[in-house]
Structures are given as structure tokens and as C-alpha cells.
């Protein structure tokens, strides 16, 4: 997961370029900074990062050819190893403080905090004209995602969601195959993740009632800032740094975590857009657990209408080690991946793994071998998935959108979060009105589509 570090940043370049920025649009004050200005070929971007202990550290490692100028984390211990790695970067506890003080020095921001703070932080950066690389899922609620998408458009910043598989060669190959009619019109999609019980610390989320113990907050952690817009609750080590994904208030569960990777290929190559309706079943049964964490397992069923000449699609998501029935086309002995998807067309089935259609194949293998692949029609992203951050850097410099800009990552995340909503309102077929962001047959959904922020926090 962690990438090799490139060379350390060169401060001389930074200074030169900084001087240029200050002299130009940047001087007009941080809030009106106009992005999209031209960058010289060798000019470096000044990057700040917020949430640098986990994925943020990995993202930064892919950006070391740029200037890493500021780092922010509410946990100086967890973020500390990254602070040490970039000693020239100023370090902050509060992103607002960082943006106020360093605003003029920052071109772009990487955000890799827990899901519940994506939107408030992302929005603040976008409003200040910063380009943003925001981890997936884009935000914690559908409303937040919509607002971020619109804000990125309005403020003309370059955006990239952290679903790095979208930069892969495999997802482009899949697109070309589907365009080529490799498996005919696709009417069914099945996707699955072994999370929240994947078997390692990244993939195991707790399924539990709210902890009752109230241990002391570690000195290194600013708990209030960690909570951000979420409702106040006492600190407990279960939430931070690893397990927040499992809690409704902070994470988006297995679907939010992995759906942006695993559903990305189908969403893109089938141009799925907004579903008409979605329904979920889950294993929740104990009210105090069901109110606190995501379920041990869930099945979410989406129905997408016809798009152009593409027929309606039924998409089913499984997590918690539930799987679709074994496809007839899959040879005995051939293993289903722990995270993956099946696209079922009239003339065949395609199976792929996670992170952008990894290992994409037509099944069975005889049909794959017999397939006359079309010529490459889509340009590839340099370095594929591994080049996802650099594709964003490229976009910041040349002004052409990154591979998974919010124009794409936003609708993808909305679709994913609609499934999360269905899990929350399990056993109810939700009829979705995407224009008004409204479940037309369930008013209870409103409070999850647009949650109330804690006092002092706004989007």
C-alpha cells in the first residue's frame, strides 16, 4: 500500500514559483485565488495534506516530486511519522488554521481524513480555490457529495477522488470490450467485498453497540477536532485510527469503503448514472448494535433504468463474505476473488477484482482466449493506478480534468451512498429522485441524506 519515496522536494524551485504566485492572482487574497493558471514544465505544485497517518501518507508518497509544504493531522502521534518524513513541511493540528496561515503557499490539498470530515474540509479547500485530491468515498452523505461536486465545478478547481483503480489500464480495457460488445448488452452486475470481515486490520470493522467506557483522550489527539461535524461522543480507542469505518457516524461501511473501487468499473463502462430504486437486507438484529455500526453482512440491490441503447441493469452488492451464486460460466476450481464483480451480458460474463477491474477476464477462459480484442481506443493514464495522484497533479498543471474528477467521482459516490442509505433503512424499497435528492417513499431517509452537523460546523 505504501509507495516508494521519490526524491525530496527542492526548496529553490518552490521559492521561485511562490514569488510568481504571490505576484499574480494569489496576491488578490486567498479566497479569490484563481486556479487553472499555467504552470511551467518544471514547475512544482505546492501541496498540503490533511489526515496524513493512513492513506494520506501513501498518497503523499506518490507526490514527492512536488513540494509538500504543509501537513495537518488531529493526531500528532499518528500523523507524526509523516511529519518526520517531510521535515520542511509546516505541521498543523487544525486544517482551518493551516489554510488561514499557509493559504497563499498552497496550490493543492490531499485530504485523507475519516469519511465524516471529508466534506467540511474538502469544501473549505475548494472555496479557497485549492485543487483537491479527496479520498474515496467522496463524502459521508449524499448531500455532501452533491455540494462538493457542484463546488468543484463552480470554483474550477482540479479534483480527484482517491479511487486509484479508475486510472488503471484494466478499467479502460474493460470499457473497450464493453463498447465492442464483447458480452453483449449487460443486464446484471454482481459485486462483493469480504469486508467488514476481510481478515486484516484494514478490512475488519467492529460490529458492536456504542462503547460505554470513557478512557482518557491520548495527549497527542485532539478529539473534538477529530469529531468535527459529527455529533459529540466521548473518546474511545475503537474509533481512531482504524475502526471508524464501521460506525455509521464516521464511516460508510464496507460498501462505502470498497464500493468506490469495486463498483467503479460497472458504473463507468455501463454509464449507470442514478439508480431508480434500491433495497437492502442486512444481518442487523440487535437495536443497539444496529444503531451504532454497519452490519456484519448486507446485500444491496440497485435498479438502473435503460441508458440510451443500453438495457436496464440490476446491480447487487454483497459484503461480509456473502457472495452471488457461483456463475455457471466459471470453471470448477477457479476461485472467486475476495473482492470483485461480475458483469453478466447476453453473450457472456466478465469477472474482475477490485481497484479498477483488476484481473479483468471474460469467463470461461476459453471464451476469453477466443475473443478478438478491439484495438485500444482510450488513452491510458501514465503509470495506471499507481499514477492516480500524479494524474491529478498533471490536471492541476495543464487544466485538463483528472481521471476521477468529482464530475465522475461524485455521482459514483452518490450511487454507493444510496446503497448505504438502503442498508440503514433495510427491508425497504427506496424510490430515488436524484434531482431533488429525495427518497420519494420514505421521509425518514432525509436525515441520512443530509445529516445535521454539530453546532459550529457548516458545509
Amino acid at each position: 500500500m505504501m509507495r516508494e519515496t521519490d526524491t525530496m522536494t527542492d526548496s529553490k524551485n518552490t521559492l521561485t514559483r511562490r514569488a510568481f504566485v504571490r505576484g499574480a492572482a494569489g496576491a488578490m487574497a486567498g479566497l479569490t485565488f484563481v486556479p487553472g493558471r499555467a504552470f511551467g514544465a518544471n514547475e512544482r505544485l505546492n501541496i498540503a495534506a490533511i489526515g496524513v497517518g493512513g492513506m494520506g501518507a501513501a498518497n503523499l508518497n506518490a507526490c514527492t516530486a512536488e513540494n509538500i509544504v504543509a501537513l495537518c493531522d488531529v493526531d500528532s502521534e499518528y500523523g507524526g511519522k509523516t511529519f518526520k518524513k517531510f521535515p520542511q513541511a509546516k505541521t498543523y493540528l487544525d486544517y482551518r488554521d493551516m489554510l488561514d496561515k499557509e493559504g497563499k503557499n498552497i496550490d493543492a490539498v490531499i485530504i485523507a481524513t475519516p469519511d465524516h470530515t471529508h466534506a467540511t474540509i474538502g469544501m473549505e479547500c475548494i472555496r479557497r480555490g485549492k485543487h483537491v485530491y479527496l479520498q474515496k468515498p467522496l463524502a459521508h452523505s449524499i448531500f455532501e457529495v452533491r455540494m462538493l461536486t457542484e463546488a468543484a465545478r463552480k470554483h474550477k478547481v482540479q479534483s480527484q477522488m482517491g479511487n486509484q483503480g479508475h486510472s488503471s489500464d484494466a478499467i479502460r480495457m474493460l470499457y473497450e470490450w464493453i463498447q465492442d460488445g464483447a458480452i453483449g448488452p449487460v443486464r446484471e452486475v454482481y459485486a462483493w467485498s469480504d469486508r467488514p470481515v476481510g481478515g486484516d486490520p484494514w478490512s475488519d470493522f467492529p460490529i458492536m453497540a456504542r462503547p460505554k467506557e470513557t478512557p482518557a483522550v491520548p495527549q497527542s489527539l485532539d478529539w473534538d477536532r477529530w469529531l468535527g461535524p459529527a455529533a459529540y461522543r466521548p473518546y474511545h480507542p475503537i474509533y481512531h485510527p482504524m475502526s471508524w469505518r464501521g460506525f455509521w457516524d464516521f464511516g460508510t461501511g464496507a460498501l462505502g469503503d470498497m464500493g468506490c473501487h469495486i463498483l467503479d468499473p460497472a458504473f463507468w463502462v455501463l454509464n449507470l448514472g442514478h439508480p431508480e430504486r434500491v433495497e437492502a437486507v442486512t444481518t442487523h438484529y440487535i437495536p443497539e448494535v444496529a444503531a451504532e455500526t454497519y452490519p456484519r453482512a448486507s446485500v444491496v440491490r440497485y435498479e438502473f433504468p435503460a441508458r440510451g441503447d443500453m438495457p436496464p441493469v440490476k446491480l447487487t452488492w454483497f459484503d461480509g463474505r456473502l457472495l452471488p451464486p457461483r456463475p455457471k460460466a466459471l470453471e470448477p476450481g477457479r476461485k472467486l476473488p475476495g473482492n470483485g464483480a461480475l458483469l453478466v451480458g447476453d453473450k457472456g460474463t466478465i469477472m474482475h477484482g477490485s481497484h479498477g477491474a483488476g484481473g479483468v477476464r471474460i469467463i470461461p477462459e476459453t471464451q476469453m482466449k477466443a475473443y478478438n480484442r478491439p484495438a485500444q481506443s482510450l488513452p491510458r493514464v501514465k503509470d495506471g493506478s499507481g499514477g492516480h495522484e500524479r494524474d491529478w497533479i498533471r490536471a492541476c498543471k495543464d487544466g485538463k480534468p483528472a481521471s476521477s474528477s468529482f464530475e465522475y467521482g461524485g455521482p459514483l459516490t452518490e450511487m454507493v451512498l444510496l446503497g448505504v442509505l438502503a442498508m440503514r433503512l433495510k427491508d425497504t424499497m427506496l424510490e430515488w429522485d436524484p434531482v431533488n435528492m429525495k427518497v420519494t417513499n420514505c421521509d425518514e431517509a432525509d436525515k441520512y441524506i443530509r445529516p445535521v452537523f454539530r453546532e459550529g460546523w457548516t458545509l
Partner: protein
Amino acid sequence: MKDKTLSRRDFMGAAAAIGAFTVVPRHVLGGAGHTPPSEKINIAGVGIGGQGGSDLRQLESQNIVALCDVDWRHAARCFDRYPNAKKYKDFREMLDKEDKNIDGVVVATPDHLHAIISMAAIKRGKHVYCEKPLTHTVREAKLLAEAAREAGVATQMGNQGQASEQTRLLCETIWDGAIGQVREVHIWTDRPLNGINKWYWPQGVDRPQGQDPIPDTLDWDLWIGPAPMRPYVGKRTYNPFVWRGWWDFGTGALGDIGCHSMDAVFRALKLGYPTSVEACCTLVNDETYPVASRVTYEFPARGDLAPVTLHWYDGGMKPPRPAELEDGRMWDTNGKLYIGDKGKIIDYRLIPEPRQREYGKPPQKVERSPGHYNEWVIAFKGGKPAGSNFPDHAGLLAQVVLMGNIALRPALKNKMLSTKLYFDAEQFKFTNLPEANQYLTKEYREGWTL
């Protein structure tokens, strides 16, 4: 053998009648269906604290002559109801001492004891009513069905729904071609639901540490029976009722409900052994069944009937809501969905409801039941075999249901990501995964045999 059995039956019938006359007080008899004592049969119950007590209440037109339970506290209510019945803790002792007084045995213990008790009764020529699922392992169900056939005794499994009007309507509707060929069936239940109310039980949990003092009223060794010994733990960990969740004692949600809900499917579609079974489930350990699972069986063509895929879901999982189901109509957390070439049925009604109303009632082809328990009594007295008798129906049904649990075994889970389990009924084994075959049967604790 059969002749011998029959003549012994005749003799036993006579003997029992005498016993009944002398043993059974008048006050436990009576009611509308009152029959003269000379025609009554003498019934013993084993495992009477829960469902067994309910079963006996349905058989009160007969003589309840002996009661056996390893937990006398749990059994107290049933003991009180039949004050003249002899009380036992060990079914073997009861069968020895009451051999001449007992015609039939009702077995309603935890699943892991069903086969051993039923077999012991059958070997003595007793008629047997055994709760569902018939047994704890696939092989036990096969052997029990064979033994019942050989002994010629009257048998009935406790899946009461088999006698219902709804099961008959379903069969007749499908046989009438109302939905064409049926190729896909979905069955689902919200069990086990981990103890949200007292009728449900924990799954997906580990064995508790430590042990509690065994209550005086409980014979833990007998409760464990053929299973590996383990320390007693109270707090409703194993007993009563919640044994269902443990691999060693129960058969999970599938075993509990499968014999009810698959019964109608087997009858309507005339199913036999499947060709394959596969499954997925939430995390599962060697102690308890998983919280939720999906099991998929493939059945081959039978005569003119198309192959069938049967999907089982538990733990709150469900199939997709069919488009034919009217908006606003409940998509229940327990149900059966039959998908035919020309229509769909939920439980026993065509959907949408106007289709059912238009269709009306199918031509009646199946004889109506005199009642599930009565069927057994009638068979007992030389009449028609009961609807869920072991040799013709329940044995196979239980085998297929329990096969699904093999596909959930934790030791096979990784392999099951790469294949289905292919079953060969002739050889009575899985052909592609030899390590799965050990789960068709089980080892009994020393001192216990089938």
C-alpha cells in the same frame, strides 16, 4: 422381517390396549375426538420440555404413558399435565422398562439425539414421531429412513405444514401448469436473529470459557449424549432451545426451518437428491453456525420437469423483490418464491394478486389431510402412511436440507470459493471434494451408537 413385524404389531396392539385400559385415567381422555380406550395407542415422549410437550398435547386422544427428559425442571410442566405417565431421564431405561407398554415414541430432543433415540425405538418396533430436522447428519437421515422401511413402523416427521391445505394448493397450482415449468425457487427466513426474542438463538459466536454448576435437575451427560463432552454452561448457553446454533447439537437456521419450508417445494416439484450444493455465509467458526447464509442447490430434470435451482437464505437475507409484487405489499422476512416460465408464486398464491383471483382454485388432486398428528395415528393403526413418513419423504428431505450445512463448514469455506459440492446419490458421496464426505456423518462419543 416385515411379516414378523406386523404380527408383532398385532400382538403389541393387543397388549397395549390392555395396558392402556389399566394405566390411563379417564380424566386425561375425552374431548370431541374421544375414542374408546381399546383403540388407543400408548405413546411415550422423549424430550418434552419444549416442542415435545406441544406434540403430546396434539396426541392426547391417545394414551400418554411414559415421559422422558434429561432436564426435569424444564420438563415439569409436561410431567404435571400427565401425572400418571411414568417419568424417566434416560430414554434407554424407559424403552427397557416400558417396552411392553409403549407403542409409539415422540422424539423432540435436541437434534444431535434424534437419530439415536428414533433408531432405538424403531429397532424395538415402535412407531416414531420425530421432530424436524429428522436427524443431525445426512447419513443418519438415510439410515433412519431405511430402518423405518425395514421395520414397517409408522413414522412421521414434525413438519406440520406438510399436512396443510396450503401445501396441497401449491402442489395443485404448480401441477396445473399455472406458472409453467418452475426452474428457480427461493426460500428465506429471518432466523436465527441472535436472540432478539426468546424464540431465536445465537449463531456466529464462540464457545464460552469456564463452566457452571450443573443443576440437580439436569443430567448433563445424557443431554450431551453422543456429542463430544463439554463443560456445562448455564445462562441459556446450550439449554434449553438455544442448542440450535451449535454445530455439535443443532442444525442452525437451515435445519430448523428448512424441513418446514422445503417440504412443499419437494412435493410440488417432485425433487430428489441435488446434483450440487454451494453456499456462502458470514464468518463461521467450528462452534456455531454463521449469522447469515445463502445455500444454493441444483436439482436435475425429473421426467418432464425442468432442472431446478433452489436458493436458501437465512439471517435476514432475502431474494430480490419480484417486480410482480404490488407496490406497498409486504415483502416478508420469511417466505417462498417460485419462479416459473409463465408466472410466480409467493408461498402458495400467484402474484400479483389479480392473477391469483383470475386463476381461482386448481383442480383438487391431492387428498386432504386428517391432520398432521392424526396421520401418524392412522398409520399407526394400519392405515395410510403419514405424509412425512421417513422412508418415502422425510428421510430424503432431511438429507437434502442437512447437505446445505456441509457447504457451510468452516474447514471447507476456502475450497468452496473455487467450486460447488457435487453429490453422487448412488455412491452417497461428494465426488469433487473428498474432505467434505466426513461431514455426511459424525463420530459418536464412547458408549453411544446408532
